[in-house]
């Protein structure tokens, strides 16, 4: 039989470091059922006993209001948990003990870890461990989690508790004073009228939560057949306590808990030195009135360069590697359906997934590093005012900015935002931030239809439009989706700490592998679907395949110089692909959808081939990187410019043959910016928001908003006399 240990503690108490130290690499990351809170569990063996450790989300309390607290409270109350291990930050004992006063009410054995005792000692805080054990009624192990000090002792203790050898746990609870205890006892009696309710959690713990006016507790009671009696007693208790003790139940309970914590700390710990802490010295610079923002911008620039400039190098290797593989396979296999599935479907599909991994790992590593050092809270502190105006949280700033590199890891980066509402809104608006893949489309289109100067202006305008829309949509979604007051901004600024390389590496590995397993399949499936739409039925046309092969053989028979022969073969391939794509299901879809897009892409109804845009945009659904290459196929013109020419053959074809005007080209750019996030982003939203609904919503509002703004572009442009 394995013993299940729940690891509970405040945020920033070093819980995850301790978890890693206990379980090593043997752990599993998943989600708690029904919510998007990460569930980390692992096992370790000591002295022949196997124990399972579940790392709960870090919380300041168990009052069950936030998603994290609900998860922690309900798991702790479940019979699955045999032992609670409460991690305490030794340098911030009083606030950490608030949660302990609640854990002690759960009626389960509680052991304590006094973590980061080195930090506390540096601040002059010495803690009398035996006295602490006596007052908390459970064993206390001092540790330094990031140096693995005390871990063996901790394992020994847990193993002995698992075998029931240790009787060091006494039941200690906070004494709430005569008046409150009296009311608790009365509530206890009423709760015990319902055996089922009594069995869900200790009656005293439920009674306390009722006194605190806890909604979750009230919901539990409402379901009970004794609800009438309990509610009656509760209002009697309130009527007695509030005038008598001069405050409401929640305040009274919190005061008594802090009274307990304060008294305990006075008893067991020496007061910290008055000297300035290293954190205070660092903060004097890092959150300085004038220096704070420039330093933040500098750090942001560094993270951005690391992720998207350094990360681009392995990304290019991967992309080139797969392209080479695809060319190799294409040249070895006869042209046909199966080859096309491999060359144009599977290989680019796998490539589209793997190409994200380096960027995700680097950016997530940087973010984990910022988070673990404590700087992330400062970044939020610095940017909160600006972001609050936009209806967002200070922590939303980094994901939004990183979105301009790539939306996929940016959405993952929104994990750092605690409030689920703020996190969701940030995820939903991040796709509006123009990413580097969309830039390639702008460059081709703007370069074709505008002078270099105007093209640069148009491209910059797209980026500002994206950010502006993100802000606007943030406000709109906030008021439309969450009518209640926004979640409170009560954020701890934890002491700066140097994170361990190992923890950061574990985090990077987790994020990369989660992406591959959870989002990878979605992207791959989508890429294959789009391949199918854009190749059938033409790819199955044997006559065409035969003609193509004969043409190739004819060229080969001419014995031309290698370069010319290659050019001709390329042109043949382009012509063959163009024939297939332009008669494909996607093309038929394009012809069907074209009337819908006419007001924005063809307002004068002069373009015979406006439906071709739809094919390119459909491809853009997979990844914006392939919009340009798809256009090259559709228009049967190479995307690479010949030597000494400014425009590529594709751009010339677009200028002369597509019928786009500068104005409709601009509308095309606006539409490309907004119309839909790429598959990677959609898969990531689905995973991070926990439902297909939000992913579909993002696509839906993108299409509507994209169409609307492209229409406005055309309408305003025409009003000013542009064509």
């Amino acid at each position, binding site marked *: 039989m394995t013993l299940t240990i729940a690891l509970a503690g405040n945020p920033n108490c070093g819980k995850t470091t301790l978890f890693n130290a206990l379980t090593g690499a043997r752990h599993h990351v998943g989600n708690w059922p029904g919510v998007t809170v990460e569930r980390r569990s692992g096992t370790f063996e000591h002295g022949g006993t196997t124990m399972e450790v579940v790392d709960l989300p870090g919380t*300041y*309390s168990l*009052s069950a*209001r936030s998603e994290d607290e609900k998860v922690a409270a309900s798991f702790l109350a479940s019979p699955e948990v045999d032992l609670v291990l409460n991690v305490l930050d030794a340098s*911030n004992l*009083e*606030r950490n003990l*608030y949660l302990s006063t609640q854990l002690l009410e759960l009626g389960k054995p509680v052991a304590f870890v006094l973590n980061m005792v080195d930090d506390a000692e540096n601040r002059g805080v010495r803690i009398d461990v035996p006295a602490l054990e006596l007052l908390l009624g459970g064993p206390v192990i001092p540790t330094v989690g990031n140096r693995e000090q005390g871990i063996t002792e901790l394992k020994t203790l847990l193993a002995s508790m698992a075998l029931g050898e240790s009787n060091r746990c006494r039941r200690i609870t906070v004494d709430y004073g005569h008046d409150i205890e009296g009311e608790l006892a009365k509530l206890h009696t009423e709760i015990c009228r319902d055996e089922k309710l009594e069995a869900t959690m200790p009656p005293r713990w439920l009674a306390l939560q009722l006194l*605190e*006016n806890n909604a979750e507790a009230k919901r539990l009671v409402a379901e009970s057949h004794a609800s009438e009696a309990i509610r009656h007693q509760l209002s009697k208790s309130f009527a007695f306590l509030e005038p008598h003790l001069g*405050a409401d139940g*929640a*305040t009274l309970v*919190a*005061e008594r808990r*802090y009274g307990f914590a304060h008294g305990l700390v006075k008893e067991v710990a020496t007061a*910290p030195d008055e000297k300035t802490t290293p*954190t205070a010295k660092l*903060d004097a610079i890092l*959150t*300085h*009135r*004038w220096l*704070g*923002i420039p330093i933040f911008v500098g750090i942001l620039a560094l993270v951005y360069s690391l992720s998207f400039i350094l990360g681009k190098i392995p990304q290019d290797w991967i992309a080139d590697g797969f392209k080479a593989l695809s060319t190799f396979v294409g040249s070895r296999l006869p042209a046909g359906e199966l080859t096309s599935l491999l060359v144009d479907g599977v290989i680019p599909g796998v490539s589209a997934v793997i190409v994200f991994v380096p960027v995700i790992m680097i950016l997530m590593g940087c973010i984990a590093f910022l988070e673990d050092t404590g700087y992330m*809270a400062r970044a939020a*502190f*610095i940017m*909160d*005012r*600006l972001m*609050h105006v936009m209806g967002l949280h200070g922590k939303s700033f980094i994901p939004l900015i990183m979105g301009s590199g790539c939306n996929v890891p940016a959405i993952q980066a929104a994990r750092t935002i605690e409030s689920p509402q703020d996190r969701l809104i940030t995820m939903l608006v991040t796709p509006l931030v123009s990413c580097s893949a969309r830039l390639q489309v702008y460059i081709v289109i703007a370069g074709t239809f505008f002078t270099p100067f105007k093209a640069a202006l148009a491209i910059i305008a797209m980026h500002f439009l994206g950010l502006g829309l993100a802000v606007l949509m943030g406000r709109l979604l906030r008021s439309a989706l969450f009518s209640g*007051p926004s*979640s*409170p*901004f*009560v*954020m*701890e*600024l*934890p*002491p700066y700490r140097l994170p361990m390389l190992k923890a950061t590496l574990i985090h990077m590995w987790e994020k990369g592998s989660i992406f591959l397993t959870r989002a990878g399949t979605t992207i791959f499936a989508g890429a294959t679907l789009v391949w199918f739409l854009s190749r059938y039925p033409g790819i199955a046309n044997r006559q065409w395949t035969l003609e193509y092969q004969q043409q190739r053989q004819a060229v080969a028979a001419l014995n031309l110089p290698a370069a010319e022969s290659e050019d001709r073969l390329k042109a043949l391939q382009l012509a063959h692909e163009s024939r297939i794509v332009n008669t494909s299901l996607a093309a038929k879809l394009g012809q069907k959808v074209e009337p819908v897009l006419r007001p924005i892409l063809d307002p004068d109804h002069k373009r015979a081939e406006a439906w071709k845009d739809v094919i390119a945009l459909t491809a853009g659904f997979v990844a914006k990187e392939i919009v340009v290459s798809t256009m090259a196929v559709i228009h049967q013109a190479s995307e690479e410019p010949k030597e000494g020419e400014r425009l590529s053959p594709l751009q010339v074809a677009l200028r002369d043959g597509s019928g786009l005007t500068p104005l409709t080209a601009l509308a095309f750019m606006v539409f490309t910016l907004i119309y839909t996030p790429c598959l990677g982003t959609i898969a990531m939203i689905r995973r991070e928001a926990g439902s297909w609904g939000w992913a579909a919503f993002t696509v839906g509002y993108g299409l509507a908003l994209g169409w609307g703004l492209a229409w406005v572009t055309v309408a305003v442009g025409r009003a000013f006399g542009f064509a």
Partner: protein
Amino acid sequence: MTQNLPIPLSQLQPGDQGEVIQVQAQGQVRQRLLEMGFIRGARLRVEKLAPLGDPMELVIKGYHLSLRREESSCILVQPVA
């Protein structure tokens, strides 16, 4: 003596100290503030304001916390010299 009248926490300046009199916020914010240590009689010190003027950083119960003006204006404190 205006010094002795309780004022909202948002009116304290960096460097000022105070003692919590009452949390006037309701619902979730109230509960969160109580848990974070804003109970009657708790001592706090305002450290600084963020570069853009909001939120504020303060020290309470020996740790650093940041609060927006929205929340800090709901906390009544007694300034302490």
